[in-house]
């Protein structure tokens, strides 16, 4: 019902705009531009942003965290392991080729070869083509996140990528490094065609004349994307009218954009959680649950959000944000210094101890300042933290080596699902499965692992949510790690750009639907 209302509203809007809607150019500035035009090359925000412009997914998230049909018109469960999709008819690729189930299968197969994406498709057995516009996605086991995964499938023009390029190399070759046809040429079904691309300088898009979604209210017929690295410059470009749309906006500049008569600030609660991990293998004391709890009590999440993040973050007591299946409303961070000290005393560490601490200084918003704040808060319960911060390029190798007793890590779940956090951050380390790959705390609770595995096979959403909430609760009680906050998202836009209608928490704005008012 809700969905129909929305579609209806969209249709009305589109109809009303149809007369007045004029071709418009969107000039936008991000902090980076896509590494490649090959949507399978790298799993990153910039790639997904590009994919949503040039390609279309089978399904996509709407603002209620529900699935919205795109190239897949409808879908139905055939059995525990199989989902049957009906492909939209008459959808054209930029090359003029028509989209068929063969393209979906081709894309799926290619995607499962991608080092970055193969993890997402791991639970799948393959694609069955029923006819030109019907196909099935089959999983190895019962898999609850099938549709989540389908948001990553952006069908590519299999005919376009067929054959050899000028260098005699196969056009569909997928390479992380080195020159490939697919990294510089693209044919998707998306609303925009790349017309010019100077890597690191600008990318220009034109609206695809034969775009299938005639219902879309979007009236942007040209996009010029410029990466602007420096926050202040990016903001200045917006304020001076050189660009109409920017992301991200540094917290310090929020007020300036709000106050300006020509610009709007659009914010959404984010999904990236910032945490510290307490290494139990390096520090004996961290094996003691009471000490870990004391650390959590000693840190003032609220204060960090207010003072350092200027209110532009949501204090976190767990991994997944609100809206995710595992979210539990009452798992809130508590700041209680007295309790923290009492716990330290109880654990026999009344006099405290010294630890080393590491954090990046150019990866997350205000990462260095946050780490400094945490260090000084810990000093109050006698934990002397020797903090070292460094650029992300140097930080990650250190993180992989688990070089410090307390390390910062932020995480966004590629699957937009609670289980993903635990798999990577809190599960017992296991090289074979890759679980616990980023668990520098070495927290290990077999029960938690078992629960997450169970959730992975539970297709009943309510049952599954229950399990994941249990996981979050256990992690909270055992103080497995130190959650700090979820980074919010902020876009700056010129007033004539209706940015609020197209942005989302995943941070790939659906610019095909963007309306620019005159």
């Amino acid at each position, binding site marked *: 019902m809700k969905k129909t209302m929305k579609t209806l509203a969209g249709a009305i809007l589109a109809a009303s705009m149809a007369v007045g809607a004029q071709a418009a150019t969107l000039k936008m500035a991000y902090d980076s531009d896509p590494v490649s035009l090959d949507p399978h090359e790298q*799993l990153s925000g910039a790639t997904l942003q590009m994919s949503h412009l040039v390609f279309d997914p089978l399904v996509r998230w709407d603002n209620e965290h529900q699935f919205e049909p795109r190239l897949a018109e409808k879908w139905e469960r055939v059995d525990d392991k199989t989902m049957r999709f009906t492909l939209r008819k008459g959808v054209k690729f930029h090359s003029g080729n028509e989209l068929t189930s063969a393209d979906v299968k081709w894309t799926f197969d290619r995607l499962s070869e991608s080092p*970055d994406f193969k993890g997402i498709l791991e639970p799948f057995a393959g694609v069955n083509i029923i006819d030109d516009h019907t196909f099935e996605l089959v999983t190895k086991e019962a898999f609850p996140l099938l549709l989540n995964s389908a948001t990553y499938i952006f069908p590519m023009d299999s005919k376009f990528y067929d054959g050899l390029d000028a260098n005699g190399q196969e056009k569909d070759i997928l390479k992380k*490094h080195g020159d490939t046809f697919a990294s510089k040429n693209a044919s998707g079904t998306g609303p925009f065609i790349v017309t010019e691309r100077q890597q690191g300088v600008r990318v220009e898009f034109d609206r695809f004349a034969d775009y299938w979604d005639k219902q879309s209210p979007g009236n942007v017929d040209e996009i010029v994307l410029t990466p*602007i*690295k420096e926050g202040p410059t990016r903001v*200045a470009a917006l304020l001076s009218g050189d660009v109409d749309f920017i992301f991200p906006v540094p917290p310090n500049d929020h007020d300036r954009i709000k106050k300006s008569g020509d610009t709007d600030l659009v914010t959404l609660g984010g999904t990236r959680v910032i945490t510290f991990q307490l290494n139990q293998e390096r520090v004996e004391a961290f094996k003691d649950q009471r000490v870990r709890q004391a650390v959590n009590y000693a840190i003032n999440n609220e204060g960090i959000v207010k003072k350092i993040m200027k209110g532009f973050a949501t204090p976190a007591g767990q991994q997944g944000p609100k809206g995710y299946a595992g979210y539990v409303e009452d798992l809130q961070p508590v700041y209680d210094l007295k309790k923290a000290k009492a716990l330290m005393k109880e654990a026999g560490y009344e006099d405290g101890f010294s630890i080393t601490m590491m954090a990046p200084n150019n990866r997350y918003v205000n990462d260095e300042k946050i780490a400094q704040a945490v260090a000084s808060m810990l000093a109050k319960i006698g934990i002397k933290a020797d903090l070292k911060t460094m650029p992300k*390029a140097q*930080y990650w190798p250190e993180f992989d080596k688990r070089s410090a007793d307390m390390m910062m890590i932020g*995480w966004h779940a590629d699957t937009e699902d609670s289980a993903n956090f635990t798999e990577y951050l809190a599960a017992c380390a296991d090289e074979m499965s890759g679980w616990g790959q980023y668990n520098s705390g070495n927290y290990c609770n077999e029960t938690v692992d078992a629960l997450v595995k169970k959730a992975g096979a539970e297709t009943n959403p309510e049952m599954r949510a229950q399990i994941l909430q249990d996981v979050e609760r256990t992690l909270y009680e055992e103080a497995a790690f130190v959650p700090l906050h979820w980074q919010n998202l902020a876009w700056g836009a010129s007033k004539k750009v209706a940015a609020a209608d197209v942005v989302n928490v995943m941070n790939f704005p659906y610019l095909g639907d963007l309306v620019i008012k005159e």
Partner: protein
Amino acid sequence: MLLFLMRRLMQGLIVMFVISIISFSIQDNLGDPLRELVGQSVSEAERQKLRDEIGLNDPFLVQYSRFLGNALQGDLGQSYFFKEPALDVIFAKMPATLELVFAATLIIILVSIPAGVYCAIRPDSWGTKLILGFSILGISVPVFLTAIFSIYLFSIELGWLPSYGRGETTSVFGLWESGLFTRDGLLHLILPAISLASIMLPLFIRLIRSEMTEVLHTEYVKFAKAKGLKKVRIYFLHALKNTMLPVITVGGVQIGTMVAYTILTETVFQWPGMGFLFLEAVNRVDTPLIVAYLIVVGGVFVVVNTLVDLLYGLVNPTVRLARTAQ
């Protein structure tokens, strides 16, 4: 002359060779290129496979000799990010940087010479005090602030100049993307050039002032006065030419240094040049690009120094004649 150039060429090659060794040996400390190449959830095994493919797991000597072998054929490696030969990437960005440095140099010359000469001729005037005051301010304010401030003033408040980028460019002979021939390109050049120039301007004003003051006390200037020459000719021919000798030497080196300063300026103004490219390469741990950039910049330094020496010889007859006496 030929000998001089040959010697410089040798010198340049040695400089580049040394840079290559140094930058190659520190590349492990720059970070893990893989981290920037793959997504967060890619497993360690996958990463290792990629490392092997790229050759990052080879011992240093193997990697370096492979690099050197390719370098001798003019190939300094392939950028991970751009997926193109590092040299091509750098040369594609070079025009932007050189035009920026050129414009900044032009500003420095056009401002520092009159200002420095004025300060030397009228040491006690208010104008001099003002100029010297400003130059102290210029030395103490970091270029980042100058740049941001000028963006806010001229782009946002006044709306006169664009805030970022290079604007419209035209291709010269298909080799050189130039922003000097369009109004838009020139407008985009103004702010970055000014803030880049602002780093060196105070130094040059002070240098010219002190050199000129010294020259004004020389006998030949006194003699020129005694000859009955007009002031303008004394100041701007007799004195200025001699003033410029040390300025050329110091200034030439400084202008070489300016190539390094472009890193900051280009980042603030999103100027698509080599400096910005380098900073990004460091952030992305694009080691082949980093190594190639350092080698190219080393080469640029040698070229600039050579040009400065040639220019010095052009102005100073003593040097020129010694070299062409043959």
